[in-house]
């Protein structure tokens, strides 16, 4: 039976994620060097990349759990998919917001219909639609199944978001490029380290949020089942 008390996993994840974020903020805002042409505003980059990575990661979790649910019909996988979708939307929103602030400073506009930006916005709409499917489906089995199908189709467009910047000669910068078997980073080494730390810290936040959200999902399903039992007992 699910409880309202935090599980050990939730406590541990929260205890690691909180100091990690503080440390990542210190590195991003104070330790990392100023960018030569963009100046101090470039520091938004660390949060921006961290959020974008976690948005992709969350939608990957939705995708894998969707396939898993359709094959195995496990309630936990469905709960995980539902939770990851919400968190993915949160990180996509953060990516769009931080990107918008940065664009205002660097490109002098809040928004431009660049493919990379456009496709990220589409991704946001797509997963809001995913939540709509969940909200409008009646019955636990049907909700899981239909959401699973939509989760698979929606994710098929996510790689396109990533490659769009490369294909369509976007003005969005491409920092990490493969070059002759290795990967080249067009950045100062200290910036690379800071970026890694920010990505790891936000991934920990993602994991902590996910563990709490999944717990909540199980609780709400349990509550729904209890309500149903009460309803049946009152009726008969």
């Amino acid at each position, binding site marked *: 039976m699910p409880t309202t008390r935090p599980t050990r996993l939730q406590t541990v994840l929260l205890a690691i994620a909180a100091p990690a974020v503080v440390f990542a903020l210190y590195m991003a805002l104070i330790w990392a060097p100023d960018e030569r042409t963009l100046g101090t505003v470039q520091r938004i980059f660390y949060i921006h990349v961290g959020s974008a990575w976690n948005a992709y990661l969350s939608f990957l979790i939705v995708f894998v759990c969707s396939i898993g649910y359709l094959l195995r019909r496990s309630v936990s996988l469905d709960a995980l998919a539902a939770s990851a979708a919400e968190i993915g939307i949160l990180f996509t929103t953060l990516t769009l917001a931080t990107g918008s602030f940065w664009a205002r400073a660097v490109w002098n506009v809040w928004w431009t219909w660049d493919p990379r930006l456009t496709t990220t916005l*589409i991704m946001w709409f*797509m997963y809001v*639609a995913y939540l709509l499917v969940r909200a409008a489906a009646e019955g636990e089995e049907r909700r899981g*199944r*239909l959401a699973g199908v939509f989760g698979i189709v929606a994710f*098929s*467009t996510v790689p*396109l978001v990533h490659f769009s910047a490369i294909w*369509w000669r976007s003005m969005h910068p491409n920092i990490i490029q493969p070059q002759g078997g290795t990967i080249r980073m067009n950045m100062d080494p200290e910036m690379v380290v800071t970026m890694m730390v920010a990505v790891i810290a936000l991934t920990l936040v993602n994991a902590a949020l996910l563990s709490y959200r999944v717990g909540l999902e199980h609780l709400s399903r349990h509550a729904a089942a209890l309500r149903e039992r009460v309803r049946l007992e009152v009726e008969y």
Partner: protein
Amino acid sequence: MRYLRALAAIIWKDLRLEWRTGEALLTPALLALLLLLVIIFALPPGVARMEGVFTASLWTALFFAGTVGLSRSFARERAEGRLWGLLLAPVDRSAVFLAKGLASFLFLALVALVTMPAFFAVFGQSLAAPLWRWVVLVGLVLLATSGAGTLVAALAAQLRAGEVLYPVLLFPLLVPVVLAAVHLTDALLAAGGWGEARAWMHMLILYNILFWGVPYLIFEYVVEV
């Protein structure tokens, strides 16, 4: 062989049903023409001749009108347990998807065939490129649309207020197809051939593979009873 016979039987059934009701053909065609009127009235005089306005109007109208017809594809199977009858057929479930998708594509193509000349005429737009290029472009756009549209129609038919949700679920999936359609149409009107637009053509083909391949693989989970 049995697969193909089942496919043909379902398409034939949809065609006959369409012949008697006209809901996937007449209604969208009328809606497209009405949208054309609304757009023309809404635009300030002279703007209709400006570059890009024709393309935007054409595809906005076609996509909106198209969803009306597409959503009927499964909505009309809901009544009287008709979907059960379809699913009881002793063939792979993907046959139901392919047949429904192809029938929807046929209706969409007919709607485009009837309404597009009106758009060209009202906007005073010449073809500017060989006809076969238009056929390829419109065909590929509508094919991708009907693939995704059929899958989402099957899904929405099982949701509460699915008919209202249908466009909201479908349009995010279709945005890249819309973008490709608009860019390629502009390329055709500029009479410069594919050229720069080649990347969009590749993407349109990619989306066709995606929107027919993925539903083909997972359709049996969509219509489970």
